């Protein structure tokens, strides 16, 4: 870094300025609907020139920081384009009467007010919370038992692990249709009437399919946790005369507490985002005769499906967008709590 001269400073500034001008010109051309084919190269060369100018800027003090930023740039750029901009646009659209094609006016918070007045939406939110709680318990319980089974020295446990994990590899939509067939054409011989047509049994059906799909995945994480319990601790326990039950509750479960936290939050967030099985299995059908004074026709429709349905089927994109913002807030809260708890656990360990 001995070339700290006026010459290189000048070069740097010129590069930055030229780069900025080219970038802006390319973007301006695009916004004005110009179809000139040099737009793309102009933009890329402009950005590169700007970055090079910044890199060559003669400063000892900030050189390292500049390099860091340049290296981070591709990631930041991708993150902004695919996450930040859509998020901001989404919040913006939620305050308009956007149809998915165009919007004519701003409506302020009217969409938010409308969604809390809609019994069908409140039902969806409640159903989602109930579903999340039931699933968090059931998935973890089933997965933990399966993990115990697969680590108990059973013959051919590799096969069982693979078999329990397999449903997770099938997409939710496919699973939904397979189980729809099972409920409507096979189990109907026992149940007389398909489980999918009445709200209560249909919810039960979704829970069954979801547990069936997800337990294998969580099981794998529990297996990892259980196999990491140190052998010497287990050996010491057995020498001290602990039976299987005591070993499980006094040794194994406390030793895998962090795994349990991870699994709990994994099931929590994924159950919140439940969409594909819901869509393919019941499509949100089911009736509720009297909820907040209304006759509901979306008995098994959970939050994510409700959002999709509002936007796509009811053709109300802005209201759907408002619901999606709420959905984002709920999930963000869950994630923040998760990060906090995980961090504090790590300190303890």
């Amino acid at each position: 870094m001995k070339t700290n001269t006026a010459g290189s400073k000048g070069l740097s500034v010129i590069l930055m300025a030229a780069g900025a001008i080219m970038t802006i010109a390319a973007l301006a051309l695009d916004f004005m609907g110009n179809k000139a084919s040099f737009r793309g190269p102009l933009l890329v060369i402009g950005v590169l020139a700007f970055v090079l100018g910044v890199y060559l800027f003669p400063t000892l003090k900030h050189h390292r920081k500049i390099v860091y930023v340049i290296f981070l740039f591709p990631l930041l750029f991708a993150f902004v384009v695919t996450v930040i901009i859509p998020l901001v646009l989404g919040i913006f659209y939620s305050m308009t009467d956007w149809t998915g094609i165009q919007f004519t006016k701003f409506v302020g918070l009217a969409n938010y007010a409308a969604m809390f007045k809609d019994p069908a939406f409140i039902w969806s939110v409640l159903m989602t919370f109930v579903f999340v709680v039931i699933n968090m318990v059931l998935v973890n319980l089933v997965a933990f038992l399966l993990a115990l089974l697969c680590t108990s020295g059973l013959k051919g446990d590799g096969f069982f692990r693979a078999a329990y994990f397999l449903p997770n590899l099938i997409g939710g939509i496919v699973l939904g249709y397979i189980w729809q067939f099972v409920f409507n054409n096979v189990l109907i011989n026992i149940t007389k009437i398909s489980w999918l047509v009445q709200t209560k049994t249909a919810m039960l059906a979704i829970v069954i399919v979801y547990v069936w799909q997800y337990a294998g995945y969580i099981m794998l994480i529990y297996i990892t946790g259980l196999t990491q319990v140190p052998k010497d601790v287990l050996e010491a326990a057995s020498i001290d005369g602990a039976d299987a039950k005591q070993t499980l509750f006094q040794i194994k479960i406390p030793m895998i507490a962090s795994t349990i936290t991870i699994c709990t939050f994994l099931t929590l967030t994924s159950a919140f985002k439940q969409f594909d099985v819901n869509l393919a299995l019941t499509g949100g059908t089911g009736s509720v005769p009297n909820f907040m004074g209304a006759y509901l026709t979306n008995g098994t429709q959970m939050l994510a499906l409700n959002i999709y349905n509002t936007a796509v089927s009811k053709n109300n994109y802005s209201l759907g967008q408002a619901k999606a913002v709420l959905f984002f807030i709920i999930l963000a809260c869950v994630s923040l709590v998760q990060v906090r708890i995980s961090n504090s656990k790590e300190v303890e360990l």
Partner: protein
Amino acid sequence: MKKKLLALALVAAMAMGLVACGGGSASGSSDAAADDAAKTEEAAAPAASGEGDIRLVNGKIEVDAALKAAAEAYKAETGVTVAIESMGGGVNIQDTLKGYFQADNMPDIFVCGSDADFGNWTGKLADLSNEPWAADTDAGYKDADGKIIGFPYTTEAIGLAYNADILEKAGIDPASITGPESMKAAFETLDAKKDELGLTAVIGWCCEAKDLYWSTGSHSFANYLDAGLARDDTTYSDLLAEGKIDEARFQKYAEMIALFNQYSDPALLTSGTYDQQILGFASGKYAFVTQGSWIGATMTSDDAEQYAAAGNFKVGMIPYAFDEGIDTILTNSPSWWAVFENDNTQKAKDFLTWLAGDAGQKFLVEDAGFISPFKSCKYVANDPFAQTITDFTAAGKTSSWHWLKNKASLDQNVLGQLYLDYALGNIPDAATFTQVVSQQIAAYYAQ
């Protein structure tokens, strides 16, 4: 120094990455088009070749091959390539189109099925009023100002389809079913002779709410809106637009639905699929089937084997006579092709004109099995229901499809589930059904 070289090399590598990305964006649109159009292999090529070609999004996947054949012939004649992109089987076409619009990848011609669909594109569609074919048909889609903005390509009919052979064996003249009493009598006669006639049930009628909501909530409900009315009579659809139903008329209709619920196949009533329903009718297991004329295509293709085994019986349609004096079936163009206003508009219009002409109609009618909405068309579709539609049309006994004006997804979000509840017994009787439907429609239209 080595470190600096390494860092520079990495920067260069990153820059290469950026250039590659930038280079990619130029051809990005056609790549996206190729991905989206992956369902139809041909569509990818024209999207890449760009100018001079037009693209049509078709909503009837079953006629994909016939349309492609027509596009080939058109290319041979005029040199203009028409890419056919077919969607169906649960794809929400309007939503896909919105995606195309956002991606600046709009097709030049696309399918629109209802007022809500056309409403999405207000101000973006070409006026087709002065096209040569416009005078040749009454079925073009007209917007609020009376401009034709939709090209009609087929005619479909909603009526109570029957198996003529079975009715003949049971000694029932379909023409004698003119009202609720005679319909009930016919159903009872058939039910009593079920074993003798080899029937599983009198009528194939399914109320499943997830996949068949459109059959109950739109097509069956359409009879409440239009059956027995003149083609331009909008009494009940106007009422519906205000969120109301005529309860006296609806209750009569609801009583007919109760009859269907009672005499349908209990195995399929609440959880059957379209395929099972049509297969049952094609195999001669039901004397009647709800649905409409489009099942003819299913019977002669997917279910051809069973249909042949059942003797390729003659079929016909009777009106859904839930009230004495209802004597019409509902015929309409089920959806239209709209032309997107862009640089290719004239080429798109030329293609539609060709389709409406003799050469195009031959493909649409003979290959695709469409029942032509054009007066000058001289081809006859090879469809089991073509004859009955022609007869009703000739006698002037047809009503329109005003259900197309229903609020978006009324069937999926409200009515489908209510029909299911009625079939399940969650809603006990016709009077309660009328009440619930009335309240729910009012609530849905108020949203």
